[in-house]
């Protein structure tokens, strides 16, 4: 595998995030829902870095993604929790490059981020508390989990291997 300098890799990751967040290409959508890009990009970084560095990366990533959304609901709390969890997991497990393993971690991470956003929306908008069955949330959550689970094994495992080489 070609050795890519770490700084270039981080730069490439940010470029990818920028591109996919803004353009949200149709060929990478399920039912109009895009993959959870913060999870896909944070997962390999957290697995190969210390909890502190991962937490800082999660905070910055969350701030960046939040700047493209319209309400006060934030990605930061869920990404912070995930970064710490993945970082500790990465320190104690060696065979994490497995294709399926990465996919499962991305799926559970996306579900956690989705539930966090859903909960924040319910807390923020009282009108959503009138009816606890939100079909749109379930729809978005399931679609996002599926598409992230499909994309993550390819992109995240490649990034993880690249980080490992560094």
């Amino acid at each position, binding site marked *: 595998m070609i050795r890519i300098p770490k700084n270039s890799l981080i730069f490439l990751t940010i470029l990818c995030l920028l591109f996919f967040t*803004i*353009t*949200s290409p149709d060929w990478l959508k399920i*039912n*109009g*829902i*895009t993959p959870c890009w913060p999870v896909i990009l944070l997962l390999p970084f957290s697995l190969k870095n210390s909890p502190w560095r991962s937490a800082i990366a999660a905070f910055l990533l969350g701030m960046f993604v939040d700047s493209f*959304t*319209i*309400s006060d*609901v934030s990605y930061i709390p869920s990404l912070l929790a995930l970064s710490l969890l993945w970082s500790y997991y990465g320190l104690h497990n060696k065979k994490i490059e497995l294709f399926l393993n990465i996919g499962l971690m991305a799926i559970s991470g996306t579900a956690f981020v*989705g539930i966090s*956003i*859903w909960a924040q*929306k319910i807390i*923020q*908008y009282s*009108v*959503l508390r009138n009816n606890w069955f*939100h*079909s*749109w*949330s379930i*729809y*978005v959550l399931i679609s*996002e989990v599926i598409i992230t689970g499909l994309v993550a094994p390819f992109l995240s495992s490649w990034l993880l291997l690249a980080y490992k080489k560094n």
Partner: protein
Amino acid sequence: MIKARGKIGFHTLLKSRFWVIFIFVVLLFGIRWTKGAGFIDLYSILLKPILPGSAQKEWIQEGENIERNIRLKLLEDDNTRLRKALSLKEFNSNQRISAAVISRSSRNWWQQLEINKGEKDGVLKGQTVIGPGGLIGLVDSTTPLTSRVRLLTDPGHQIGAWIDRTQRHGILTGMGTNRPKLIFLNKNSLAEIGDAVTTSPASTLLPPNLTIGIVQFVNEKALPSPYAIVQLTASPEAIDWVQILKNND
């Protein structure tokens, strides 16, 4: 010399013109009874090849459209004059900014559009964005070259709306789907399925009388107040160009 009269019997009926006359009379009665339906139908069939074609129909439709446009213009002028007289918020339909949708997130956790017109073109936060079919959202934030539009469908997004037929106000609340909820302010909404939902003519925040959608479902017994589910007439998922309405003030 007296001629002997022929024998009268059934054979006479068969031989004479009796049947011809009988059928003729029955036919006449039939025509009278159906009020000449058969004749008219036959006439229309015969006339069909020489009837004026679709061109004439188009001319008539074009004429009707011109007439409607003139009436619409007169009514709009009348409306503007009356709104001025009542000191209501003015809305100039000529001051519109057309913008293209450059990024779309109409089904995600956040339901928003990014458009390619911003502060440099005079777009301000809170301005109304319409698409083919009616109102689609409000400008949430602007940059010098772009603007972010919060769609009506975004969960928690609330605007004032009303039903013209019943003249009852409500708060249209986004529920994440293409069918936002109209929560009425009155105990009895009097709304019916098929009622048109528009912005209030007395609104101070939104331009008046903009089409929002059609009532699909009404729950009169809901507590604390009745609500209706509204099907939006403009679909943000299929819109590539939008118009931003500028206020006069």
